[in-house]
């Protein structure tokens, strides 16, 4: 199956400030009682977007009208830590996000996101703060994530991005979902299995 070559993402951005934002916060476990990923977008950050006692919207940035329609999520260090639930990047993507810029990512979240064609790029704290300041001032400001040049451009500023090379390669060359390539390797898989006593039998 042909996958899109994701060389850049352009859109408005919303800052969700903080470090160690875990996947339970991104999508609380009770919303995982489902047998498909459909509809997960509406539960993104559910428990921090709604006051649990009053049921009213909190001051969470995703509730702010000025950030409605943003497609780039800005955050801090160790984004997506905790549970391996793919429901987290699925919820982010289904909500409408096309990419994330953060200081760093938890390992499993990063891999899950890349496989969905949701680029996770990193930038230095001060550079994320620059973009944040720009979108705070003008939420309509367009942010361009250039995966080829590994830079982000916003409001006349250019900042450096980084991304693990295997992920960048997969995204820009349209092979971020590895299933096709893995299937092609099945004869070699069987060969490798034959050499391992616990699988040979």
């Amino acid at each position, binding site marked *: 199956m042909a996958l899109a070559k994701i060389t850049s993402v352009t859109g408005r951005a919303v800052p969700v400030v*903080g*470090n*160690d934002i*875990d996947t*339970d*916060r991104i999508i*609380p*476990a*009770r919303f*995982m*009682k*489902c*047998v*498909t*990923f459909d509809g997960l977008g509406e539960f993104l950050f559910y*428990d*921090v977007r709604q006051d*649990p006692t009053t049921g009213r919207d909190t001051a969470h940035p995703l509730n702010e009208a000025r950030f409605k329609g943003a497609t780039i999520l800005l955050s801090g*260090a*160790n984004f997506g*830590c*905790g*549970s*391996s*639930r*793919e*429901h987290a990047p699925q919820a982010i993507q289904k909500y409408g996000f096309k990419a994330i810029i953060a200081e*760093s990512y*938890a*390992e*499993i979240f990063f*891999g*899950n996101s890349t*496989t*969905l064609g949701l680029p996770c790029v990193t930038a230095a704290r001060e550079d994320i703060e620059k973009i944040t300041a720009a979108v705070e001032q003008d939420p309509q400001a367009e942010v361009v994530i250039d995966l080829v040049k590994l830079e982000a451009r916003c409001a006349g500023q250019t900042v450096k991005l980084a991304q693990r*090379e*295997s*992920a960048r*390669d*997969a995204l820009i*060359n349209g*092979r971020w*979902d*590895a*299933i096709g*390539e*893995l*299937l092609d*390797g*099945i004869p*070699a*898989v069987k*060969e*490798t*299995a034959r*050499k*391992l*006593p*616990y*699988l040979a039998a």
Partner: protein
Amino acid sequence: MPQSLFQKVWDAHTVRQLANGQTQLLIGTHLIHEVTSPQAFGMLRDLGLPVLMPHRTFATVDHIIPTNELVEPYKDSLAQAMMDEVRKNCAEFGITFFDRATGKQGIVHIVGPEQGITQPGTTIACGDSHTSTHGAFGAIAFGIGTSQVRDVLATQTMALGRLKVRRIEVNGKLRPGVYAKDVILHLIRQLGVNGGTGYAYEYAGSTFEHFSMEERMTVCNMSIEGGARVGYVNPDETTFAYLKGRPYSPTGAAWDTAVAGWKSFASDPGAPYDDVVKIDAATIAPTVTWGINPGQGISIVENIPSPETATSADDKAGIIEALAYMKLPAGKPIKGTKIDVAFLGSCTNGRLSDFREVAKYLKGRKVAAGVKAIAVPGSQIVALQCEKEGIDRVLRDAGFEWRAAGCSMCLAMNPDKLIGDQLCASSSNRNFKGRQGSPTGRTVLMSPLMVAAAAVTGTVADAREVFAVN
């Protein structure tokens, strides 16, 4: 050239290099449960793909299963739908399913070892971040997302970049009242919740050599809380003794051949590591968390951190956010904090030795008035053994509810949940905001004996004092 276990297992399971530089890695053993697998089977159907090696995938049900009302259909129709789905998928694709009727159901990370499915020198994957548990046997075990569950079902492989290896040596004897849980909480506190990102942790040293398999599992289980996707202990005689005679363990001549093979996977003396950390076991105290991630821990005799003592602006912001959520006073002792719920169980501490240790001290004691205390064995086999030994009786007599096997209040996908801002003394692995089922619920992580001490005093307490442990 000496090699680490990680390198040997990785190399033995490498199928080939993929175009983007990642490795197509053979996953010998695949474990699935009801929450992260249904979508993967859906993807297989959409793609018209079969399961390549159905005999290498094993299923159970743990996350959503009720622990008190076991009769189906469950009151929660969504939970029942997930149960039906896993049954249907296993039947359709020819996968072994440890359903309740088999008597072997339980938390996936307890079932694998119990059945002897988890073996040294193998690769294991499961759509659950605590899959690192299986590393206790000298396996390389990965928590994966659902798309990768699909990949493993369809190809018995997944695309992965190689991890670095950090050797963590803990040497010496733990002080009385200090447990494997304290070791891992201490390590995460020292190395940080993202200190292990990009690493596999190799746990070694005399403390680990003397640990039982269950203690090793407790530590490996929480590797991911320190950011390390993989954690392992080199296989040794303790490992082999545990595996001998288990349903899926080799028998007869095949056993000897297997043991020889397993031994060959252990790290060689002088193997290279990307990093080495050494810890003196005697410096570890009973540890509890005070915040909203597992790295926010202190020893039971320390005071709750205050923003003024923060080491950086980030640390300060983290303390302020955590204390506001936890409603705990800065700079005051954590000891004496009132609790509402005590939870014994989870893939971290829901094994026989955990309940045995608690029962040893809980005999003749009573859960404090106003505390809801629940004990949830990690598997039906753990439950049965506890019942044979009278452990359930001791716990019930003390005032604990003795439940059926499952993940229960670790992540509260079943009916076991905190209510409002209840504070739970918990033997589980995560204290994230809302983790135990209430968006304002509060979790304090600790060892099982510390949970028992909290239950009987109604406060976060020092088990060494409460039970005169010495």
